[in-house]
């Protein structure tokens, strides 16, 4: 049986996958159709490894987070069963990995922007690699709706200034309404003029 192993490297990240062709599915000898193991090494952090499902969860969460980030949305993304989570952590990104084994504490990995980009590039290389015939449970890069962007965008919060400006405008306007206007003289003048015309008619 042929065991294949492919490695994707990006500066601080190294993702290695091992598996074998799925002959029943018609895979060629250099295609991985059945994934047996994977390891992810991020410099300065413990080695991550697990089953296909774990890699799938990790990929799904990290890629979805990057998709949100590029659209200007800073939001926590959690995988199904809460195995993997990623969220903004100051200027960095915190990856939280819960072990499926009992008694193992969750692993926290804080990535800066460069490490985060490296990880994304590793996953991109993997998911677009034609030598893997694996159906990754990945979300497609689908555009969001305008409403979703407005609801979640951090920039939309800055638009509150417009609402404040409107409130200040209304408040100032209503205060100005209270200021008395001296228009009695003009009315008197008009009355005088009308009497003059009636006198002429007489």
């Amino acid at each position, binding site marked *: 049986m042929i065991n294949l*192993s492919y490695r994707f490297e990006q500066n601080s990240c190294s993702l290695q996958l091992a598996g074998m062709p799925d002959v029943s599915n018609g895979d060629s000898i250099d295609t991985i159709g059945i994934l047996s193991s994977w390891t992810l090494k991020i410099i300065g952090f413990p080695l991550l490894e697990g089953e296909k499902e774990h890699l799938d969860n990790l990929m799904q969460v990290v890629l979805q987070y990057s998709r949100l980030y590029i*659209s*200007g949305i800073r939001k926590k993304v959690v995988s199904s069963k809460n195995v993997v989570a990623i969220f903004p952590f100051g200027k*960095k990104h915190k990856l939280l990995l819960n072990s499926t084994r009992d008694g193992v504490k969750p692993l926290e990995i804080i990535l800066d922007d*460069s490490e985060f980009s490296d990880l*994304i*590039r590793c996953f991109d290389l993997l998911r*677009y*690699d034609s*030598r893997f015939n694996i159906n990754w449970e990945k979300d497609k890069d689908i555009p969001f709706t305008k409403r979703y962007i407005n609801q979640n965008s951090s920039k939309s919060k800055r638009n509150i200034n417009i609402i404040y400006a409107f409130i200040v405008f209304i408040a100032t306007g209503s205060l100005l309404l209270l200021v008395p206007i001296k228009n009695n003289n003009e009315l008197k003048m008009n009355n005088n003029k009308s009497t003059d015309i009636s006198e002429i008619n007489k």
Partner: protein
Amino acid sequence: MKTSYLVASNRIDLDNVTISNNKTLQSTYVNCVIANDAPKKLDFLILVIETLQINATDTLLLKAKNIGLSDDFSSRVKFWKMRISNPLRTSYAFTSLTSDQVDSLVKLISSMAESLYPLIRQLLSSKESSTLNQERWFLFSSRLKSLIRERMNLQRSYITSLLNDDTNEIFRELLVTLSLSCGPGGSNRLKASLYRQS
């Protein structure tokens, strides 16, 4: 028998995959419209590329020719005409980009981001010495600000806030966007961020 293959990071043998992905992507964008801020976003990303590389316009046009982009990239003027669809520019032309133009610009930006990735990464890294990092950021932000002063409408509040922002938060966001736009995956990601589902 265990066979091991090492994959170089800059592999570009994905032609077959790209063709099949293009077909699925075309169906993905059927009910989508170009986002209002797409011209602004694209122009600013190109501005960041120009900051990172001197004489980037020539490189951009050459790259566009190499990757077989449309006639819009045949001269500097045609390229400039696309860029002035950014409403924050001094010479705003009140035009909008077509979906073909958006796709071409996305491909071009993605391709340029890939070649500039080491430089982008250096700026984004927090692991290097802080003095060196500060020096790099000073050079980057001052050059980008001078380009913004030169080309953008300084009476717009967004531009004023960009020029007065000492934290460089928006510049950092632009750099991260550029780093996430590298390669075929990044290109699709960037494209998806420029459209809205209708």
